[in-house]
């Protein structure tokens, strides 16, 4: 019935086993059960994008997933992407370009930007804006964020 159900999944490469209520969403599971507070909760109905994480390699909204749906899945949060160094250059560019300000949207912006750069190494500003269009930022007016993503793309292509 509405009793907790067992799930087993990987979070940032680590095997997690837990019992969760069916109504618990992934964002709350990550924050409250696992202490991974980099995944932020904003609107809780899929509009703001602050809860973006990777599920089996694809970016998704953690507030629009039930934890119980994720039995057997692999989830990566901003902590995982940060610890592996995968987005170190993107984080540095956000810092340099003053693209984080209050920081609330930043983890999800980083994950979404990294998703774009994996698919499209040399996006133009319009393509960056389109890919980030599902992520709200109330501080920067987005300009500095687009700058940071564009600068990271250029650096990565230059290195390749």
């Amino acid at each position, binding site marked *: *019935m*509405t009793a907790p*159900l067992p799930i087993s999944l990987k979070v940032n490469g680590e095997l997690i086993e837990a019992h969760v*209520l*069916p*109504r618990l*969403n992934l964002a*709350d599971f990550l924050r409250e059960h696992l202490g991974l507070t980099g995944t932020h909760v904003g609107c*809780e*109905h*899929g509009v703001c*994008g602050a809860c*973006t994480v990777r*599920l089996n390699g*694809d*970016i*998704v*909204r953690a*507030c*629009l*997933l*039930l934890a*119980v*749906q994720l039995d057997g899945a692999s989830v990566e949060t901003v902590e995982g992407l940060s610890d592996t160094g995968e987005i170190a250059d993107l984080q540095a560019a956000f810092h340099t370009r003053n693209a984080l300000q209050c920081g609330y949207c930043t983890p999800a912006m980083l994950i*979404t930007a990294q*998703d774009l750069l994996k698919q499209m190494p040399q996006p133009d500003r319009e393509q960056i*804006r*389109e*890919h980030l*269009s*599902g*992520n709200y930022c109330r501080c920067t007016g987005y300009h500095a964020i687009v700058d940071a993503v564009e600068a990271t793309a250029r650096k990565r292509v230059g290195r390749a």
Partner: protein
Amino acid sequence: MKASAFSYARASSVDHALELLAVHGEQAKVLSGGQSLMPALNLRLSAPEWIVDIGGLAELRGISVSDGMLRIGALTRHADVQASAEIARHAPLLTEAIAHVAHPAIRNRGTLGGSLAHADPASELPACVLALDATIVVRGQDYERRVPAADFFQGIYETALTPEELLTAVEIPLKPESIHFFHEHARRKGDYAIVGLAASAAITGDAFVDLRLAFFAVGDRPLLADASSHLVGGPVTASTLAAAQAALDDELDPQEDQQASAGMRRYLARQLLEQCVATLLQRPDLRTRKFA
């Protein structure tokens, strides 16, 4: 907000899902990608006693072409529709429309069948399947039935599905000669449309021989406009176009909300019709109004 409490059942097959729905149908909601259901649960617009999760049913996923038909499984994600070479070749209207469906993180979870079963009158894909003259494949416990898209959508969030049935696939007839048009006006890239138009057409010489105009966000369901009859079978002129626009105006009954008045929606619909016809016929002279 948080979803209210519910019981959760994960279906292991279509037959299992139908068994669960036979027992709990009236009290249950079917969860596929969840990109419309989860917001409704979180906002407590919906508070079902049961969630029947069909997300793991591989038999409902996939795209195939046979016997003059493009068949798309209900659980095919928007991202898969967008990336499919077969859909780009046989139903490019869908490929183009998907770019307007929400945002990448949502397209990675949302499904074609979920969008159709949800039947939001402002969403893109119901209008597309109407324009493409698609058939919706529905399974019940001991039967399968096929519903024309024109009969499937019955009102705001209302479809021909009963609580005991599952939408399993969409079938689109192959029309190699057809061309398409898609455009929507929205406040923000990826938002629901204020007004949109998905159209499919066939042209011989300089005249339409077929023109299916599916307007969305202008009523309680996607509307296949009869106004197209003014434009089919002969040369299109400024006056036939004006007659079609006047007929469209009579057909529409758009709602007013915080995004737009009914009058604004009528205006944008007339403008989309003009834009569609001029674009499909490659007749820029038919564009009388200029928009930024």
